[in-house]
């Protein structure tokens, strides 16, 4: 038997202290130890992108990260996006443009796109497709997701929140 290890992890600005087996994946830690089930697990080998979260602002696969590796980093999940139930402009763009159907891949896509739009606030459709290529969606055929990201970028530009 392997001893459990203490872990202190900052997720969405809250510090959580838990004791875990070292093999606990960050995805499982977030979902099952913190009950933040918005982060989804679709393949557990890094291909589908459903489990994408932000670590120190960068999107990474939480299924290819042990929770212990995330100590000292700032983790953001989909639950951080809205403000008391009010959708963020990115979320709202997805709602307006039906950028989701079953929604299982959506949290990972939102986290990837949040980081992508920060890095590239005025993307064209090809750049968006390239940026989306690490997140698989089986329902939409991606078209409406691309529309959503375009709309989110435009909304950010028109409201002046886009960072240069």
């Amino acid at each position, binding site marked *: 038997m392997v001893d459990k290890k203490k872990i202190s992890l900052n997720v969405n600005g809250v510090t959580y202290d838990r004791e875990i087996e070292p*093999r606990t994946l960050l995805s499982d830690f977030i979902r099952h130890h913190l009950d933040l089930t918005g982060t989804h697990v679709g393949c*557990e080998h*890094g291909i589908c992108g459903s489990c994408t979260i932000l670590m120190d602002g960068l999107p990474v696969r939480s299924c*290819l990260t*042990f929770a212990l*590796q995330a100590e000292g980093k700032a983790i953001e999940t989909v639950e951080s996006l809205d403000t008391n139930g009010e959708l963020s402009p990115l979320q709202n763009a997805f709602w307006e443009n039906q950028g989701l159907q079953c929604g299982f891949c959506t949290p990972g896509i939102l986290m*990837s796109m949040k980081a992508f739009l920060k890095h590239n606030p005025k993307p064209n459709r090809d750049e968006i497709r390239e940026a989306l290529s*690490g997140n698989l969606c089986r329902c939409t055929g991606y078209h409406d997701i691309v529309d959503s990201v375009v709309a989110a970028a435009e909304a950010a530009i028109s409201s002046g929140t886009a960072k240069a």
Partner: protein
Amino acid sequence: MKPANFEYFRATSLDHACELLRAHGDDAKILAGGQSLIAAMNYRLARPQFLIDISNIDSPSEITDESDGVRIKATTTQAIAEHDPVVRRRLPVLANALEHIAHFQIRNKGTVGGSIVNADPASELPAMSLLLDAEFEIQSASDKQVMAAEDFFITYMTTALQSDEVLISILFKAPPENSGWGLHEVARRAGDFALVGSAAIIALDDGGKCSFARVVLFGVASTPVRATEVEDALLGQSCSDALFAEAAKKVSEVVDAESDVHVTDEYRGNVAEVLTVRALADALSRAQAAS
């Protein structure tokens, strides 16, 4: 798909990692970005007893501009290397190759050293280390050595690195001034492992003849391979489409491909030749633009 148990150690430095490796021996594995290792662990194909985590050492990402090339600390993430201005200026082919690795979410964690040590013959960085005559700085608790890339890769996922050794840094040599590069690969989808890839660097002398040539293929053998026969057929010659077509035929000398669920060994051999012609053509036009 949950990993088997292991004991976890967080190394504070690469020296510390070497100490931990010495203490735990053959059953210990280095955990860097983990983008291949953790996937294999989730499938329980990999079941290391001890994991030594080097992803949280002090200043993991370091890129140094050196006289003969660019030194990249092994723990540098692929994303940092990809966007680094020194890499983009001095090793544009490497920057381009980095963009081909999986997806940006993977590159945000995957490390340059990790991909090289993983030694997947279809992946880009092992091929780049051959293309750019890389030198690997290798360390154990008791020893340090420098190994050339050409001596490093043994077969699929197998390298000359001993179980107590850690890859510390990689010196990618800058290609000659006024050289040009080309990199072509075929993958089923963007971000997938290359079915076949070819990378080339060419430099021209004052008379416009080929004065330097490097051609490296990946996905066509048990390791990335340098196609010296192709290079020899180019050196001292006037570059042309016809020359490239003739020279690229010699890729068959180094291709020893396998079939998989996607394509046959024969496909890999044929397409390696096609992509080599294209990589050479790109390299030539960049070389001409540079001179």
